[in-house]
């Protein structure tokens, strides 16, 4: 226990002085492993090298560059504005309608993009101007984008779920199936949060104009690409027609064709999209490799076992343990970047959760929902930062103020998923068991 705690302390120190998280985890994991193996440097070097070699050529992880590529291509193709137009045509005439439309469009965009930050940044560009035009308050407008954007990592495809699946050896297909209903629940609760905000302050979100049936059908025509892409990719995975990697490859190619048809690609843009995707992939892999080396050390030090002994010693009920873990995540999430928080904690928690008899697919969804919450929790809500970066004239304070009802909606959703696991497990059980 002491060894792992010292390891953790060193790790936190290194991360705080801005050592790249992947490097920090790798270094601490390496030296910890050396210490535990009677100063055997060669064994530790070989372990780390094997991790680097195997992880960077892992078939399962190959979905990551392909899904990121798909998301980046779709982002460049400008489909996000069509998604917004379509949901506006159905919801715009309601009170707070433009914010409702923003939440729905974010949810739809999440269905083809696996990143929350990208979803928030993309939707900000298309949904902020109309909300400004109709006189929406900045705090409601930005909060609906920031919160809606968090759906990116839950509604499949999701990069974080893939990484969770690799670390805990759970099936990516089941995780993707499990994320679907909680994602829908998130959209509904966020719409509730919008309604609540407008009910409290009707001036914050006035009605837009009503569209007739013909205009609605016209607007839906713009989003056929997204619908087809999502149906093929996720339908293919759910139905077992292709592996997640193949689905991601098809999805990326589909997004490439859509972008070509919409004439939003030239050679330079394509090169930029590809190299940007490669760089994002590399930065994710560095963290994943670091985390795997670190978790080798943590497991060798026996931290998960000792935690389990501690829990049985205190006679905590399994549900209490889950709530303690969630509490830890909410605290960590306030300061940490989401992916690194997940990579640091999952290797320690998942053996405990598993031996307490919980479903690891369900736990994955719980962890991702907590991570979503961390994206809009002050002081370090990354989605909020991204938004205030894109919309230079809105301060983070304004956004955090508007986010409160959405944050509450998230907590309600988290409780629902924890207390009624069926919300997450229904779809995977029905599809695969």
């Amino acid at each position, binding site marked *: 226990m002491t060894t792992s705690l010292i390891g953790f302390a060193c790790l936190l120190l290194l991360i705080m002085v801005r050592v790249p998280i992947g490097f920090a985890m790798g270094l601490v994991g390496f030296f910890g492993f050396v210490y535990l193996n009677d100063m055997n440097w060669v064994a530790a070097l070989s372990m780390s090298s094997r991790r*680097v070699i195997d992880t960077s050529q892992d078939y399962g992880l190959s979905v990551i560059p392909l899904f990121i590529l798909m998301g980046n291509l779709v982002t460049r193709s400008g489909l996000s504005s069509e998604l917004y137009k379509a949901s506006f045509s159905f919801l715009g005439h309601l009170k707070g309608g433009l914010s409702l439309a923003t939440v729905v469009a974010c949810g739809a965009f999440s269905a083809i993009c696996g990143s929350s930050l990208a979803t928030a940044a993309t939707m900000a560009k298309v949904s902020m101007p109309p909300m400004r035009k109709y006189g929406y308050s900045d705090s409601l407008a930005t909060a609906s984008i920031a919160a809606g954007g968090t759906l990116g990592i839950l509604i499949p495809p999701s990069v974080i779920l893939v990484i969770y699946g690799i670390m805990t050896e759970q099936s990516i297909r089941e995780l993707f199936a499990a994320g679907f209903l909680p994602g829908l629940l998130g959209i509904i609760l966020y719409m509730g949060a919008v309604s609540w905000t407008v009910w409290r302050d009707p001036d914050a979100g006035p009605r837009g104009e009503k569209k007739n049936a013909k205009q609605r059908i016209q607007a839906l025509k713009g989003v056929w690409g997204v619908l087809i892409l999502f149906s093929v990719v996720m339908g293919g995975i759910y139905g077992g027609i292709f592996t997640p990697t193949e689905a991601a*490859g098809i999805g990326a190619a589909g997004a490439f064709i859509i972008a070509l048809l919409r004439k939003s690609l030239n050679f330079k843009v394509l090169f930029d999209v590809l190299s940007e995707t490669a760089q994002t992939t590399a930065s994710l892999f560095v963290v994943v490799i670091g985390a795997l080396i670190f978790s080798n050390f943590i497991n060798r030090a026996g931290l998960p076992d000792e935690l389990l002994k501690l829990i049985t010693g205190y006679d905590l009920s399994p549900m209490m343990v889950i709530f303690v873990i969630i509490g830890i995540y909410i605290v960590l999430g306030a300061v940490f970047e989401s992916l690194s928080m997940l990579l640091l904690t999952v290797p320690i928690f998942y053996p405990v959760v598993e031996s307490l008899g919980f479903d690891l697919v369900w736990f994955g969804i719980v962890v991702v929902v907590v991570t979503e919450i961390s994206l809009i929790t002050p002081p370090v809500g990354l989605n909020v930062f991204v938004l205030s970066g894109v919309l230079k004239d809105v301060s983070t304070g304004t956004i955090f103020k508007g986010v409160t009802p959405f944050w509450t909606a998230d907590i309600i959703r988290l409780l629902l998923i924890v207390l009624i696991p069926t919300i997450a497990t229904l779809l995977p059980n029905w599809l695969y068991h």
Partner: protein
Amino acid sequence: MSSERIQALSEKGPIKWLALFLNGLAAITLFALMLITCVDVIGRYVFNSPLVGSTELTEMAVGIVVFSTFPIISWRRENIVVDILDNYVSPKLDFIRTIIINCVSTIALYFIGQRIILLGKRSLGYGEVSEYLAIPTGWMINFIGIMCWVTAFLLVTVGIYRSLKVLQISNNTLLKDSI
């Protein structure tokens, strides 16, 4: 201060070409990866003949994509970091910090690269090849090891040169602000 501006100031001549080359290698491989999976799926369902060795090619492609861009993200400080304390760190301290972190990373990457290349040599010595296409597995291992060394070298050269430029720029803006 935008990252494009830093890039324009700190990446000139050979470094610019090197970045372009590495990015190009990654971009082509990534595009090929997309095509490989599509050809495999279409071949399997439409023509009943899947692409032989597509799994191996996929695995190699991922390795190439990751390790050809690894040096770039490392010297441009684009690795994932916790940056909540950045506003409290002076440019000078940040410069010193970058030098220390880059030197430590270089030493670590040197040793791990050395070990990986050793494993690569060993694999070549045993004559290990991939299952379907009979590609020597040692090639990819050596590529990864060499790219670790390349990154190690670039971190203490380009990486430090870049942060020196950042320091100069921030000093200049401070001067202008005080006038």
